[in-house]
């Protein structure tokens, strides 16, 4: 069934299909539409979930962790200030191996206050042990709402999952979206089963303390789960493709990178405009390509190294900056190249902070500058010294 939906609405539709037992969320722009739609679905009986009106994001995640420890499927959603407010719970959920799924609407973080889209919220929390995916359109958002549960809850993974949607550009933009059939989603996504939960036959102490001798082992296991997640993501996408006919490309999505001289690497919705300009440049005889990182964790190290190996130059376009260094995406991409011994020059272009438009001209400029050599970090179109 096709419907004309915004990113937020599409995600809510995906959650209706995944049918978590417990939803605990707190409103914040530009995520609010998701919690409103889910409340309506619970009210009209089309979604059989407990919707818990928590009094804060900290409680939203704490409640989801509690429900996960009780053995059921959980969902929360937030953005920006809300994500930072629940930050304590992120490594908590990950360390406890509770496969909570969260939608995060990417938004700037105060100060100055700003409700528009950038990715500094989720990237600041990249190291908290969550799988992080960045959707590029409403269809992907919906599909990830379903697929995220398959991956997160898989026995080999058992790791929380954050799906990121660019604030406004994706959360509030309408597209035609295909809504999969409920029965087939049931076939794709089995009910949540786990041993990592309370059990009245064999009572369990979970979420405990572990001293220096054992703590390290638990952390290593978390890391290993991400390595296994790479396979589970592939398997999820293969099964999803078989059932619903839509193909996803794993940790990264490449566009014309095969023979590209110049490649832009980016996250989320910005990739669409980059592809349009790559097409334009190709017509002008410039071999341009685009690599969209879908997963920041686990990170597509191999895909990046392979795609950039024969390029003359590459540039990261990101809505993020780690003050005092470069953007977080850049640092990760640079490490991927270094590991693989790829010496393609790599530049960082920071744009879109606080929702500033990334224009056609900006992207052409990135392709042009990387040919000539640019400063390591460029704040695009800043206009001030």
């Amino acid at each position, binding site marked *: 069934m096709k419907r004309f939906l915004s990113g937020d609405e599409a995600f809510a539709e995906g959650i209706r299909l995944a049918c978590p*037992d*417990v939803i*605990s969320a707190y409103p914040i722009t530009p995520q609010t539409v998701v919690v409103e739609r889910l409340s309506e679905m619970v009210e009209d009986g089309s979604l059989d979930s*407990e919707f*818990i*009106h*928590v*009094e*804060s994001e*900290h*409680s*939203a995640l*704490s*409640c*989801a*962790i*509690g*429900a*996960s*420890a*009780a*053995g*059921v499927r*959980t969902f929360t959603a937030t953005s920006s200030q809300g994500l930072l407010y629940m930050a*304590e*719970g992120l490594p*908590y959920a990950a360390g406890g191996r509770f496969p909570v799924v969260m939608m995060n609407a990417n938004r700037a973080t105060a100060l100055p206050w700003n409700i528009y889209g950038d990715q500094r919220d989720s990237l600041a929390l990249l190291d908290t042990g969550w799988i992080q995916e960045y959707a590029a359109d409403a269809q992907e958002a919906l599909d990830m709402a379903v697929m995220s549960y398959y991956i997160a809850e898989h026995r080999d993974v058992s790791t929380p999952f954050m799906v990121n949607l660019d604030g406004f550009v994706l959360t509030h933009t309408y597209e035609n979206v295909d809504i999969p059939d409920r029965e087939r989603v049931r076939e794709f996504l089995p009910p949540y089963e786990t041993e990592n*939960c*309370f*059990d*009245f036959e064999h*009572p*369990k*102490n*979970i*979420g*405990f*303390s*572990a*001293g220096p001798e*054992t703590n390290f082992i638990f952390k290593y296991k978390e890391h290993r789960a991400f390595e296994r997640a790479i396979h589970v993501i592939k398997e999820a996408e293969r099964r999803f493709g078989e059932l619903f006919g839509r193909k996803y490309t794993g940790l990264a999505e490449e566009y014309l990178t095969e023979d590209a001289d110049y490649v832009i690497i980016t996250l989320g919705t910005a990739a669409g405009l980059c592809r349009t300009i790559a097409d334009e440049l190709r017509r002008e005889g410039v071999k341009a390509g685009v690599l969209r990182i879908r997963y920041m964790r686990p990170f597509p190290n191999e895909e990046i190294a392979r795609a950039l190996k024969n390029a003359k130059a590459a540039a990261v376009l990101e809505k993020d900056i780690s003050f005092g260094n470069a953007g977080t995406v850049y640092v990760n991409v640079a490490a991927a190249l270094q590991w693989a011994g790829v010496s393609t020059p790599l530049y960082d272009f920071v744009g879109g902070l606080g929702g500033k438009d990334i224009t056609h001209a900006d992207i052409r400029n990135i392709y042009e500058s990387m040919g000539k050599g640019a400063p390591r970090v460029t704040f695009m179109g800043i206009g001030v010294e």
Partner: protein
Amino acid sequence: MAITAKNLDKNEYFYGHKACAGCGGSLAVRAALKVLGEKSAAVLPAGCMSAVGFNFPQLCFGNNAIISMFAGTASMLTGVEAGLRRRGIKDFHAVGFAGDGGTADIGIQALSGAIDRGDDIIYICYDNEAYMNTGIQKSGLTPFGARTTTTPAGKNIRGNIRPKKNMFEIAAAHDIPYAATATIGYINDFMEKVDKASRIKGTKYIHVIAPCPTGWGIPVDATVEAAREIVDCGLWYLAEYENGEFKINRDPGEFTDPAEYLKKQGRFKHLTDEDVDVIIKSRDKKWEKIRREWK
């Protein structure tokens, strides 16, 4: 049926932990779990009871249990209750054991949210009147005059200058189905309140005084005595809030001398007679109101 030594559950649910000798908090947890039994799912935030009970691989709860974030006792309980109910499990108890700091300070927002939602949980605050796990710092429930490591008793300031926050009445002000105060010094009264709470639907709050020899500066065999004296001298009271009404369970009539209770404890050693007078006056004011307004 009254809870007696005879019919009390012989099983131990909090056993082999590393609490200090004479720890009042561990007694409160142990006794409450004997009342609630094996179908309990316990949530304990950061604090002494989680620190002494959950050291992998030495895990001390005989029932299902988990550590929550410091501020997240009530919110995690909400999730645990909802999750177990969704699994179709019946007749279980979602019970929290949080310290005074975890309750009256950092966790008060989540607790208020849970009471507001009417979540079917039992929240027990074991009150040892300071942040003990981090080494005896002042909390919102540290009493007037007490010396803690952040309210030192010096020449200029003699310990904590603020009275205890009134958590019992704060919980009641939400029009909670059931709230009660207790002390491990009158353990039967405490256990009966836990039992009563377990039979009431909605949110239940029990505030139990649980002395800490380490933080209070009393001998390890004086815990129970101190927990009785605090009631006998009128600085704490045993009460309930139910069906919109406050009820005092035990009016000692004649109080014992608070100075005796206070002077035995290292944390109050520095108090002057004037300080004790301030404490007595505030006690009398409270009791005047209790006797006038409560049943």
